[in-house]
């Protein structure tokens, strides 16, 4: 028992790194996603646009704007999804950095938070389930790849010392 605890303690920095960076990344994804709606709204001429990061009465995060009926809502809905996706894919360029695995976490989380937008856009509510499942799978794949890389890296660093 004591031995197992000691063995696990050795990997606590890996756990801490993954958890802390995931929190930072996910918070950033939510903000950038909302900015996507914001930029789309301001580009198409909507007024009184505001991003609410946390509304304590509704317990939610949202972007609010006043748009005329002529403005296509499809672009407004897709704004968040389309701003985050290229940013996430651009992380794959960082070939020698462990941070490239966050690409999957960002993409997956973007899929989850865009699920309601996509369902509204398509008019089929089941699509949101598909997006949530795909998103969750991408997050798990990303987390596993990231933690595997970090665990191997930890052993290699120990060897060099």
């Amino acid at each position, binding site marked *: 028992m004591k031995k197992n605890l000691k063995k696990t303690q050795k990997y606590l920095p890996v756990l801490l790194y993954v958890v802390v960076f995931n929190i930072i990344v996910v918070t950033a994804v939510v903000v950038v996603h909302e900015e996507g*709606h914001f930029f789309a709204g301001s580009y198409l001429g909507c007024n009184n646009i505001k991003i609410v990061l*946390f509304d304590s009465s509704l*317990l*939610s*995060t949202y*972007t609010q704007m*006043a748009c005329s009926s002529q403005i296509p809502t499809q672009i407004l809905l897709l704004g968040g999804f389309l701003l985050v996706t290229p940013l996430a894919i651009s992380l794959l360029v960082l070939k020698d950095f462990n941070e490239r695995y966050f690409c999957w976490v960002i993409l997956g989380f973007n899929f989850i*938070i865009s699920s309601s*937008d996509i369902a509204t856009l398509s008019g089929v509510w089941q699509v949101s389930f598909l997006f949530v499942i795909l998103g969750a799978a991408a997050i798990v794949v990303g987390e596993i790849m990231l933690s595997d890389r970090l665990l191997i890296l930890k052993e290699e660093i120990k060897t060099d010392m």
Partner: protein
Amino acid sequence: MIFEQPLSIPFAVAFITIVSMISVGYRIFAFNKQRYFYLYGSPSVVVAGHWPYKTHFVKSLTKKDVLSHPADEFKNEIGISYMDFGKKKIQLVDPKNIFIGSSLDGRKIDELKKINCRLLLYLFDVSHNAQPINEQIKNFRRTVSALDDISYIPVMNKIDACDDKKLEKLRQEFKNIHEFPSQNIESLMNSIASVA
């Protein structure tokens, strides 16, 4: 018009914390388990003998780019490193010293027996200041018999500062003995790979 997210920031943070903790926790568990199975399951070569420069010898076999780490699973200090030979990966087990004074360390021998040992690489120190060669041969015999008459490859270590008498004695004792340091380390690696 309101674009509401299914997950607000606090829920998103809670969600990702739980998912990442479960994922990393599972991988740590799997990683340790895999290491444990690899350690005990893969074909191993025990490197024993007179200890100065033994680690240097192991490093020259495994080369720098090969992953090597001490095995925490053992109570006593036993170094583990890996030698790549083509597609074959051979585990080199380096017990720091299997002798306590003039007798074998029983606990270390027991731990070595748990591993899938196929071969014993025994290093004889042939330098001037080393232990008398008859003592070294005696220790070698005891090690082989303690490891259930395991196959062995004798190696003359520190050949660059050798004592000719020790050299001659070992050549009489063993027909096929390797030398280290040597330009032809591949021949030794071939011999290891053919047995392990």
